[in-house]
């Protein structure tokens, strides 16, 4: 399991093609972070990851699937903000069996 993230951070897990693209399985990113900003935050760090990986992937926050809101879309007061200590994961298309 991933080490606990440092204070003021959350862990993000990269599986399969996400791990290949970032060359890591996990890293800690600064929290809080509105979920709608997740993809642009990752794109800044890993240029091209949005088109190659993120647009084909799903996202979980603390083991629950979450819809990533459109960054340019209208604000919704109920939308998810990733908090310190949360565990976020990038879930590319699965291939069990």
């Amino acid at each position, binding site marked *: 399991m991933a080490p606990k993230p440092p204070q003021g951070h959350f862990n993000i897990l990269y*599986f399969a*093609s996400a791990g*290949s693209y970032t060359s890591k399985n996990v890293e800690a990113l600064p929290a809080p972070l509105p979920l709608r900003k997740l993809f642009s935050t990752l794109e800044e760090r890993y240029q091209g990851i949005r088109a190659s990986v993120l647009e084909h992937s799903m996202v979980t926050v603390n*083991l629950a699937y979450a819809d990533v809101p459109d960054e340019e879309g209208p604000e919704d007061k109920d939308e998810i903000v990733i908090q310190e200590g949360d565990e976020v994961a990038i879930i*590319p*298309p*699965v*291939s*069990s*069996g």
Partner: protein
Amino acid sequence: MATQDPDPQEPSLSQEGIYVALTDSPLNLTSITDRVRSPQAGAIVLFAGTTRDSFDNKPVKELQYTAYQPLALRTMLDIAVALRAKHGLKGIAMVHRLGVVPIGEESILIAVSAPHRQAAWRAGEEALEECKARVEVWKREEFEAGEGVWRANRDGGRGERVG
């Protein structure tokens, strides 16, 4: 509620008539069959998925599986609970192997038992299809030529080249 098995070699979830697990070890056909055995069952259907030595005629050297373990177990449990209710199963067990799986060995085993064979056949097939569509496990094929790809079940496509 599901209970968590303390065995660190084979993380699992179980509840009445249900067992799901992930393991780094070779899979055992007899032990998964025994997990669903029931005096009320007239049929046990066992599915063994094995690793194939080629993709699109390209020779595959080995396959490697990785999982988001807590989520994969939870999804497997959801599938098992739903199918047990839908088909009136006496038992359902699913175990997926992780890490390197040599060619020709089992990567997944599914066993279901039911009073009659029709329900067991159907449930076994549905369990596999649901797993392939949903369980958070990923397969990487290492080709003899040297490169590797993460496979995606969704589209049956070629997967993404990872160098």
